[in-house]
């Protein structure tokens, strides 16, 4: 590895010396999209939570905190982020191991690390640290990456993913694996390799099924294939959520008027299944608008990544944006019965979730990349 690696230096994109809105390092189009989406989220949550104003306040405070984190991270020039990447990754892996060890002692599932003052979930850090590490590593290589670099990248993905699967947290490990795969795709690996890897994954599926999964995880997949088999458990969720979406029709039943959600047939309606509430009350056209808003945010993210000035920032921005997209697809897919119930929230809309802060931190990184420019030096 190149020990005298130069991280370059990034400064404000248009330094004027005076304080302007630019000095805030906000990407305004992206910020607009995020605020609009959070707003929609609060509106749906008010209905899904049974008009509980306390719930809205709590979510509002959480959103405020998450946007605060985004703002702070946006101020950090990308060369610092790049410099921290391997450290953050290393610390993250160590903490995952610690979680597993304490989990083994405490017996049973363990995702939290108790640091005395506060508890905290190392797998959340990895959602940022894995794309950062891959971008950091690939930036050192020429692209498309040579085979050796590819192999090491796969290792960077597999180690944390396996540790998180062990916790067990299938949803998060899936997200992190996807983030890594996207970084590789964006780095330009050949399509032939992509095909080969897909075959490999398909071949590994049975092994994961029999040795890597807990009984309840297998049960979830079986339930997805045949919801009626478990009408008291998660099969019930899928049945009810499909009824909610389907009965919404073109125009929806109207805000606060969804019978499935208001009469509480729909379980987990303020958290993982909030999309079904939205679909029931705002209908097909509402969904089109919501998806358009998500597409806007994702397209802006991809634009930022394409505009970025070096490999690290490009790969990082692209991979973070696509991870956000995975959230969306997995959540809607599970709510509408296209995918098994994995337990990922609808980003920025679902109530609660420690993932919101991580998500907004990722957008903070995007904003930092967009609002700083790299000084090109000969060194």
């Amino acid at each position: 590895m190149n020990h005298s690696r130069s991280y370059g230096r990034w400064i404000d994109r248009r330094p004027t010396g005076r304080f302007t809105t630019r000095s805030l390092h906000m990407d305004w189009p992206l910020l607009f999209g995020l605020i609009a989406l959070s707003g929609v989220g609060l509106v749906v949550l008010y209905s899904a939570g049974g008009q509980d104003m306390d719930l809205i306040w709590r979510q509002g405070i959480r959103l405020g905190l998450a946007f605060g984190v985004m703002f702070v991270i946006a101020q950090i020039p990308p060369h610092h982020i790049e410099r921290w990447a391997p450290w953050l990754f290393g610390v993250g892996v160590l903490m995952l191991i610690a979680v597993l060890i304490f989990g083994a002692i405490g017996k049973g599932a363990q995702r939290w690390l108790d640091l005395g003052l506060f508890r905290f979930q190392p797998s959340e850090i990895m959602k940022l640290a894995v794309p950062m590490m891959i971008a950091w590593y690939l930036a050192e290589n020429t692209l498309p990456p040579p085979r050796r670099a590819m192999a090491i990248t796969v290792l960077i993905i597999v180690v944390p993913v396996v540790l998180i699967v062990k916790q067990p947290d299938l949803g998060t490990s899936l997200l992190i694996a996807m983030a890594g795969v996207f970084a590789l795709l964006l780095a330009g690996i050949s399509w032939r390799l992509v095909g080969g890897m897909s075959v490999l994954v398909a071949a590994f599926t049975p092994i994961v099924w029999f040795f890597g999964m807990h009984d309840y995880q297998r049960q979830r997949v079986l339930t997805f294939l045949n919801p009626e088999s478990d009408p008291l458990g998660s099969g019930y969720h899928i049945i009810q959520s499909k009824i909610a979406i389907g009965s919404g029709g073109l125009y929806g039943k109207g805000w606060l008027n969804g019978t499935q959600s208001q009469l509480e047939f729909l379980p987990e309606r303020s958290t993982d299944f909030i999309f079904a509430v939205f679909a029931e009350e705002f209908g097909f056209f509402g969904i089109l608008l919501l998806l358009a808003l998500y597409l806007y945010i994702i397209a802006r993210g991809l634009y930022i990544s394409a505009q970025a000035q070096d490999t690290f920032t490009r790969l990082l921005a692209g991979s973070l944006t696509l991870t956000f997209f995975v959230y969306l697809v997995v959540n809607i897919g599970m709510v509408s019965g296209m995918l098994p119930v994995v337990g990922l929230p609808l980003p920025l809309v679902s109530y609660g979730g420690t993932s919101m802060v991580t998500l907004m931190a990722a957008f903070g990184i995007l904003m930092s990349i967009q609002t700083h420019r790299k000084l090109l030096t000969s060194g």
Partner: protein
Amino acid sequence: MSPQIAIKDQIREGQLFSSRAIIALIGIILTLLAIITRMMYLQIIGHEHYTTLSQNNRVSIQPLAPTRGLIFDRNGIILAQNLPTFTLEIIPERVEDIDLTIAELVQIIEISDNDISRFHERLKQKRRFQSIPLRLRLSEEEVARLAVNRHRFPGIEIAARLIREYPQGNLAVHAVGYVARINEKELNEIDPSNYAATNHIGKLGIEKSYEHLLHGSVGYQRVETNVLGRTLRVLDRTPPVPGEDIVLTLDANLQRTAKQALGDASGAVVAINPKNGDVLVLASTGDFDPNLFVNGIDHKTYNELQTSRLKPLFNRALLGQYPPGSTIKPFIGLAGLESDFITPKTTLFCRGWHTIKDDERKYRDWKKEGHGVTNFKKSITESCDVYYYDLAQTMGIDRIHDFLAPFGFGETSGIDIGGEASGILPSTGWKRQARGEPWYLGETLIAGIGQGYTLATPLQLARATAALANHGNTIQPHLLSYVALSNNEKIEFIPDRDSISINKINPKNWEITIAAMENVIYGLRGTARRINHGQPYKIAGKTGTAQVFGIKQEEEYVAEDIAKHLRDHALFIAFAPSDDPEIAIAVIVENGGHGGSTAAPIAGAVIDQYLSLDFSPGGK
């Protein structure tokens, strides 16, 4: 990397990335189109179908709780059963103003503040569509009054529920345990589907360790409800599978005798059948009524239980760790015989104390003036301390440890209700590891009389006694006799530990030891001679007195001068009939003074009752 190549790469890589980003965007749009197609399928094509379903969504699925298995003692006496009771329940989502409803209900029937606060606690834990009990055990009059007023309260239900009841009250609570409300921690460990209708879970004892057998499997029914959600008719029904009935090895009558014999004193009695490990008695005094816990105990009563001097919640039989005192002597004596450090003829002159080289300290005998010339038999019969100071010193602590370990000292017995302490069987290795200190000779001496670091639970003592009675065959004590399946078949208890046989011991040495233990009861100077009343069988036993309070070298132990809670613990181990043992017993009376005067009569009463059947003219 030279900067030149890096710059060239930057441009090419930028282009590569842009093309990949565009492909990604296309992929994203295609995925979104797939989602939109799915939505069209659900919301446009399937709209009518799902609308009908949503309108008909008055069909709800209700889980049905299985009936919990019953628990019997070995003679068929019911220890835990289910009583039908009427419960007033509220389904939160169907009530507009819960506080108002409760306020109005209070005017109809009596609802205590305690009920209300418990209701609010459960309100937080349960989903809004699940019914939550507000008042339990309604009287028939209350049921009638509620029925008349029912139209005023949508969303309230009078449910007939089965509530766990322990007809024997506190008799065997530390063995049988109890059920109580499922708490949040347990909620994470159980299968939520199977417990969808269950409110209670075993918290202690048999109820906890055999929860998987007792609980059964959930059933469910589809019911049609009206707009308010009240059940109109049942569409179809999958009945729940009731839990299995369990028969224990415990003998409730014997247990009662043991408890009565203990009286007000705090202590424990454990009796085992040495042949098969059946636990016949598992009593710990100062126990509590399990029925208090079933519906949630109120804070005041719970605090009283917790702070009571008698510590009723503490299961002394399994968790109480006591110095075994002189009850350890038969085991150490046997070790001495077996290792040829002593023979039955070996004598020692006991002058009332023992000293070791280079140590000023006097290791005193309980008998100030000493026992005089003492052989093995006398040492057990009269419980001579000096004899065992000397023997322990000769043998050394590690040899003692290795000999006693197979008897189960220092390790859990594996009883099937768990939650037992392991006690301590000290050795030089143990002390180095646990205390980080070297072993001192003086500690070997006091280990010889079961003091110092050595600790054992009453269950361990009973198990070791059983092994002694068996001439070395160890057993795993267990409370489960068999599971009574609905088809009249039985599943017998299967031990999960191998029974080891301490078999290399000369049979003669067993006999010598047991004969000495008989002499404890039948000898003229036996320390437990008061329980000899001419039984038609022979008891072998050993008394023990465990020091709680360290007395200084030159001071004398005078019971009357010492506060009750610092007085010595009284112990007694025994088995009978000594030639073909059917019961092995360990008794401890906390602060009871001498083993012979307090503990032995309790064991005697239990043994007499248990064996009276065998030796009564009618026989068994």
